[in-house]
């Protein structure tokens, strides 16, 4: 019983020991905050990645893809149709985007993606990421609105001519202007990645459009053939793809699938267009890893060494793994802070043991066992660890809870943005507190506090009672 009483009294009367646990406290709080923010970011990133990518993607190794997409999709339907919600054939190819700003021609490398917009919308968050220039959501379609056509120079002239009498000259004029209008506003629409189409000014200023709606864009991509040659096509910008994943927003350009197939010369004699991806949306609760394995195995029979089936996590494997690795390395480094705190406890405990030498002698004279004396100091260490990690945990959780307010305050004091939302497009710092991480951190801190008190406790326990009593 005396062990508990003395631990408690030491805790309440030895403030120097409390000072030693401030480092434990700070270490625990820092680890909780860092883990919460990193987990928050990772979670948000996964969300967005998963939003853009379908659950499972069947790809061909060759860029040219396969013409028998109906057959492949039928096979997939046979195999796992009961677990699927939707399928969408897609043609994805690297390309170059060219557009004009004033008289200047600008080119950018892009990923040209040919889709059926409605099907694509069923396999992932596609429709949710489509916006017009004012940030209003637009329906998933490549139709060029009549309004855009009439706003073009030729379109305006056409409008002016509408009321005029129909003679041969006007007719010829109208014909020519109509042709010009199609040239100025091509027939097919394209949805351009938001980061390609805009210039982000930051500092709370609105983004400026480099490619406003109605702009004609040129796409260059490899054509099918023994020697790949560049193919060209023109599209009208009708909207923007904004997923908040900068990787996608700065490369993706969505165009109608059939048009891309035609332009890339990927339509065979039977009129079947080739695709190089089939995106699958899986019912919730289905093990997508197993489904991918099954499909891989079965499609291998259809055409060996041609199809690659991957889940969205596998496709973004390196990125997700990098985030996980960053987090674990950071944790190891931060844990050293607590380890350093452990040495603080060790030093202060050694001092306390010296200071308490006579008391140890007295307790032994009164019949306290060696183990009993040792347990006083081990218990004291544990108690300090509990207090340190407890306060650290509360502090860390409060910090996480008010992290955005703290960020605002710091930004105001430092007069510069601490959390730059241009990098991630987040307006708030995402956080996620995971219980298992929390438990791990607290247990780790407790372990270090106890481990640091083992040596002083053993020294105290081994003390000879007579020498301890005579200690001056």
């Amino acid at each position, binding site marked *: *019983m005396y062990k508990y*009483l003395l631990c408690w009294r030491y805790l309440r009367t030895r403030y120097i020991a409390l000072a030693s646990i401030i480092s434990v406290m700070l270490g625990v709080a820092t680890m909780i905050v860092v883990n919460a923010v990193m987990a928050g970011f990772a979670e948000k990133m996964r969300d967005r990645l998963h939003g853009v990518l379908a659950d499972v993607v069947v790809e061909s190794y060759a860029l040219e893809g396969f013409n028998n997409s109906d057959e492949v999709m039928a096979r997939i339907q046979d195999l796992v149709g009961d677990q699927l919600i939707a399928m969408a054939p897609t043609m994805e190819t690297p390309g170059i985007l060219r557009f004009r700003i004033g008289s200047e021609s600008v080119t950018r490398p892009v990923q040209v993606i040919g889709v059926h917009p409605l099907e694509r919308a069923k396999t992932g968050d596609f429709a949710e990421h489509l916006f017009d220039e004012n940030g209003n959501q637009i329906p998933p379609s490549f139709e060029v609105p009549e309004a855009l056509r009439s706003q073009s120079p030729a379109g305006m002239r056409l409008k002016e001519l509408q009321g005029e009498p129909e003679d041969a000259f006007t007719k010829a004029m109208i014909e020519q202007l109509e042709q010009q209008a199609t040239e100025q506003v091509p027939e097919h629409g394209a949805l351009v990645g938001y980061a390609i189409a805009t210039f982000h000014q930051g500092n709370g200023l609105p983004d400026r459009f480099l490619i406003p709606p109605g702009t004609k864009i040129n796409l260059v991509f490899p054509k099918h053939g023994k020697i790949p040659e560049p193919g060209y096509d023109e599209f009208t910008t009708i909207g923007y793809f904004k997923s908040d994943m900068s990787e996608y927003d700065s490369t993706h350009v969505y165009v109608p699938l059939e048009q891309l197939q035609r332009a890339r010369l990927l339509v065979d004699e039977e009129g079947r267009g080739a695709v190089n991806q089939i995106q699958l949306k899986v019912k919730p609760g289905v093990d997508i890893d197993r489904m991918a394995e099954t499909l891989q195995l079965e499609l291998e029979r259809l055409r060996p060494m041609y199809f690659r089936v991957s889940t969205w996590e596998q496709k973004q494997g390196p990125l997700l793994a990098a985030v996980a690795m960053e987090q674990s390395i950071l944790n190891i480094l931060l844990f050293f802070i607590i380890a350093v705190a452990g040495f603080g406890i060790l030093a202060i405990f050694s001092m306390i043991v010296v200071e308490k030498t006579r008391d140890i002698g007295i*307790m*032994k*004279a009164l*019949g306290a066992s060696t183990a*009993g004396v040792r347990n006083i100091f081990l218990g004291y260490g544990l108690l300090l660890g509990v207090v340190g990690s407890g306060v650290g945990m509360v502090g860390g959780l409060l910090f996480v809870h008010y992290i955005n307010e703290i960020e605002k305050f710091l930004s105001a004091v430092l007069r510069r943005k601490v959390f730059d939302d241009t990098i991630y497009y987040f307006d708030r710092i995402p956080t996620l507190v995971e219980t298992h991480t929390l438990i791990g951190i607290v247990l780790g801190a407790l372990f270090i506090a106890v481990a640091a008190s083992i040596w002083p406790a053993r020294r105290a326990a081994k003390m000879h009672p*007579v020498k301890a*009593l005579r200690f001056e």
Partner: protein
Amino acid sequence: MGGHIAVDGLFKSYRTGKLEVPVLRGVHVEVERGELVAIVGASGSGKSTLLHILGLLDAPDAGDVRLDSRRIDNLPDRERDALRNKTFGFIFQFYHLLPELSALENVMMPHLIRHGLFSYMRRRKAIRRDAAAMLERVGLGHRMAHKPAELSGGEMQRAAIARALVGTPEVLLADEPTGNLDAATGQGVLDLLRDLNRERGLTMMLVTHDQQIANQADRVVRLAEGRIEEWAPALV
């Protein structure tokens, strides 16, 4: 070998560096139950060492310690701890109260050591009552909640006596109990010890270098250079 507590052929030396300093060189003492024996001698004559060995705080190099004719110096640690807790009571020159605890808690200490958490919880009222009664007995009923730093020397020694007696020991070992007190206070403490000795039939061994105090004992053992020099009946 009879008596309540006895030592026989006791040798003990301390090593300081390479030098071995003999402290006890064949000491034989027998104390009857209820006897109050004073151990006197010059500084360094081995009085305190003898007391420590008697109270199992130190182990002899040779010789044995017997309690009711049972050898106790070679018992396992656990049993020696239990004997120190139950059978022996210690009083020191510098009181040695634990500074973090109140007078009452200091007096409760032997009980706190004896009992685990649950066993203490069951008996806590009795233990508290017992310790409070003991403090009353030594005249400190009004000082229970005070920390040692708030007590005078005499009061601290009284609290230490209460602590030594609360576990109802059979043998009380006092090392210069009045050494740090003025004459009047010292005499008060001594009277208290004498009374307790009579009241409870306690066997008491009292180390002192003060002949005045030794004279109040039933018997005086004089140590010189690690040997018993004289067995003298008290003058009173």
